[in-house]
């Protein structure tokens, strides 16, 4: 962490600009599909091609998604906002201007709270504004020799731009903020938030100042980060560059830096490419965007529970540790799944363990989502109940879970077809115990001499012999008796996990 070396003298000041593609069926100002991945220049029409005489018409569902997002972020949604033209020439910008919002954005204000990792309160990241705009097309430089191709499928796809105040003083905070923001956007269902496909794009403003000062120094803009971890690296690198320049008596120039992930460094864009006067003016083709108070209130009423609220409720309602709630709320889907299971079981913590450890592990192994596993909450709850009732050991239950996902059947079916039932038959258990003791006379001696922790060793040996099917409770009693130990002695169950 670069900050460590400079923290005594300089403090980074970082702000973010986030572009989020909204998950609408059609584009911002026309009826073309907004989907990603169609053959080049097929999702286009006179409007998004910028043909002479074509006019934009606002996509109401894009506005609804933007309003929901603004409300979820605690922004002030304005009754009247104004679309504006941002004028610049670029081959993938068909009209020669982008329809955006300028001095009258859809929403302003808002706060995202970042709980400190060490539990020492929260850091408040203030939002400056949230506005709606259209995306540009894509310039493709690597498809034809010495020529640039333009794909206008993306031109006109709805975006929101979220601008934060420069409230980050460490690169990792920016990343943490983005994790939270992304989670919220996914909860809202407003965006895919896929940085690879470009549905989430982040630029940053960076400057440094003497620690403790509240002056703002010259900032640079850093672009072209294609993942959160690249963003963190880029910010650290740019902060280090600022500090180095200032320390050597130099002056930071106001410029745009392009992050090169391959080289791990940011390079300045040439001055000519960034010398823009966008000549904003109100878009005369669109009326003022009016949102009545009751429409905004109605949108607020339909907001889903946000991650932080859900996390706090899971702790409260199910008595879960904060860590569990954090993991379970990482996606909306996972949290919903947990709650469905928890409602059917008597032990929410056990349900939490199974969902966040075992089920997630199976999902990760298969690279699929929870819903793709086809593991209905009712069936998982049955399995958990068997464990709670002592009908299955944890180890056996994991095998059963795996079989359930494999076959798409119930725990009962898997147990029957694969013979995974717990062996409780005393004769059989006693036979295994006797065999085990006969094979390990030295350990028996040591145990009897007082080394009682060897009980775990014997349990393990018998378990191996039984292929994990021995009922651990009974086995333990039989072992203790057979080894002649004092049953009041406290010894640990083997950790089969």
């Amino acid at each position, binding site marked *: 962490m670069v900050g460590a070396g400079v923290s005594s003298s300089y403090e980074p000041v970082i702000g973010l600009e986030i572009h989020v593609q909204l998950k609408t069926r059609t584009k911002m100002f026309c009826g073309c599909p907004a989907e990603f991945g169609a053959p080049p220049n097929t999702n286009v029409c006179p409007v998004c091609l910028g043909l002479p*005489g074509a006019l934009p018409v606002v996509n109401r569902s894009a506005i609804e998604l933007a309003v929901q997002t603004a409300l979820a972020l605690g922004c002030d949604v304005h009754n009247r906002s104004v679309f504006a033209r941002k004028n610049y020439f670029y081959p993938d910008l*068909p009209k020669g201007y982008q329809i955006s919002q300028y001095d009258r954005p859809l929403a302003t204000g808002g706060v995202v709270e970042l709980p400190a990792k060490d539990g020492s309160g929260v850091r408040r990241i203030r939002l400056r504004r949230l506005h709606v705009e259209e995306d540009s097309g894509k310039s493709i430089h690597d498809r034809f020799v010495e020529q640039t191709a333009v794909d206008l499928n993306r031109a006109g796809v709805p975006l929101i731009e979220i601008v934060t105040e420069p409230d980050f003083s460490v690169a990792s905070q920016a990343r943490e903020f983005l994790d939270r923001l992304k989670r919220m956007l996914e909860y809202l269902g407003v965006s895919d938030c896929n940085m690879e496909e470009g549905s989430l794009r982040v630029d940053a403003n960076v400057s440094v100042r003497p620690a403790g000062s509240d002056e703002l120094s010259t900032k640079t803009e850093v672009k072209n980060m294609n993942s959160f971890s690249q963003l963190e690296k880029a910010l650290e690198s740019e902060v280090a560059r600022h500090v180095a320049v200032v320390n050597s008596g130099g002056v930071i120039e106001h410029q745009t830096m392009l992050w090169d992930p391959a080289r791990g460094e940011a390079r300045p864009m040439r001055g000519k490419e960034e010398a823009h006067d966008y000549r904003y003016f109100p878009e005369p*083709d669109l009326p003022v965007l009016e949102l009545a108070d009751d429409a905004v209130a109605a949108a607020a009423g339909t907001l889903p529970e946000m991650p932080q609220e859900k996390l706090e409720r899971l702790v409260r309602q199910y008595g879960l540790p904060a860590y569990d709630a954090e993991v379970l709320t990482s996606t909306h889907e996972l949290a919903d799944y947990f709650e469905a299971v928890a409602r059917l079981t008597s032990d929410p913590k056990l349900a939490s363990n199974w969902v966040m450890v075992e089920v997630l592990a199976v999902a990760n192994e298969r690279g699929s989502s929870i819903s793709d596993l086809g593991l209905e909450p009712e069936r998982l709850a049955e399995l958990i109940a068997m464990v709670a009732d002592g009908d299955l050991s944890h180890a056996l239950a994991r095998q059963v879970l795996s079989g359930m996902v494999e076959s798409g059947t119930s725990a009962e079916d898997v147990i029957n077809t694969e013979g995974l039932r717990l062996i409780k038959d005393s004769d059989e258990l006693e036979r295994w115990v006797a065999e085990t003791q006969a094979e390990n006379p030295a350990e028996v001696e040591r145990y009897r001499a007082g080394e009682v922790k060897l009980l775990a060793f014997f349990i393990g040996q018998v378990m191996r012999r039984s292929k994990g099917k021995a009922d651990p409770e009974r086995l333990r009693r039989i072992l203790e008796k057979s080894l002649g130990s004092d049953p009041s002695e406290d010894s640990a169950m083997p950790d089969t996990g």
Partner: protein
Amino acid sequence: MAEPPTRTTHALREELRSRRLRVGDLLRTTLSAIDASDADAAPINAFITRGGSQLEEQAAALDRSFDSGDEARPLAGIPVAIKDNISVRGMPTTCASRVLEAYEPPYEAAAVRRLRDAGALIVGKTNLDEFAMGSSTENGAFGPTRNPHDRGRVPGGSSGGSAAAVAANLVPLALGSDTGGSVRQPASFCGVVGLKPTYGRVSRYGLVAFASSLDQIGPLGRTVEDTALLLGVIAGRDRFDSTCVDSPVPDYTETIDAGVEGLVVGVPREFFPEDLDPHVEALCRAALDRLEALGAVIRDVSLPNSKYAVPAYYLVANAEASSNLARYDGVRYGLRAKDVQSAQAVYRETRGMGFGPEVKRRIVLGTYGLSAGFYDQYYGRGQQVRRLIAADFEQVCATGVDVLFTPTVPGVAFRLGERINDPVQMYLSDVFTVTANLIGAPAISLPIGDHDGLPVGGQFIGRHFQETVVLQAAWALESTISDRPLTGGV
């Protein structure tokens, strides 16, 4: 060859319906009249593109439907000309600019679609000043249009081709576009009727944008009634134009003869300046006397801020134009400079060769007026003046004034080339027309007499969406004028 029809649309409709005239014949005489008007040492040059073979099929279909007696659409079989900045499928849209070389729109303007639905025959695309920027139809890539009344003179502009086509009896009806007077000023110069509807009355979808907050498509016709008929067809809400207003469209022809008894006609003193051409002034005063004789109440009024209308207009219009014309960059359609090595060079060379001098002048001025540090002083100030003029107008209306009456243009058609090198003089021919665009109000120009054989127009400006009142006033005044030039001497 038969004479081109000089009848009004109403008369033509009657002849078509009674089958004394067939659509096929009307089409052929129309197309040959267009050809004849250009086969001259001093061609009128009203058209850039003449309709093709698909017109014959349309005409035949229309004749069949007339023959079967079930053809009742308002413009069935009527030839209509379209200004060449309005998108028509199957024909190029040039805007009289080289930059749109070989561009053919894959879609149709909402107004044109309505014309087709009403049975009209789109016979061709008319000449204009490049991108509708001009007042003489001399600023185009395809030569000037000549005034049918005097071929040494301009027809006005920018809808000079449409006005000349109607005046020369080539077509009974035409569409123009009016950003600062581009329908009314040529109507005045050519002795026809031209109307700029309320902003939002007619969809702009498919009209190539010049200044989006001012542009309106407007009808031109030989009579007020014909113009009203055409307006009724093209007006109304369109979901592809968000600035188009959802306000009911009355039958403008039904009440057109309601008269002006009790109508309060405001005469804004700023529109009768001391240096106004005395012949124009005299014709306007005579028109007011006739209106008064018909029962109208004539009242002197004032729009004090209208004296800033021309500068405000050019600040706003040029700024919007600079943005609207950014899309002509050589990347997707139209002209593209060859043998250039960078995107910047494509822009520079394409735009450098594609645009004419007047368009370039306005792009430069408009870009400047929107630039950082100049916005408030120029574009912002223009918009401010707009609001002040609108407030003046509101105030006058609040005193009970129904319509304003003014000259359309301070003079008659000027000579070809007379003002081409004097942009300020050229811009001043818009002095009485730009106000209606700045405030978004409907306005009509109709012939009120002539001076030395050249038509003079008078203008009514009405309240928003009160086209009915404007048309009634114009119809009443028109009915008092018997000697207005109906034909343009073809």
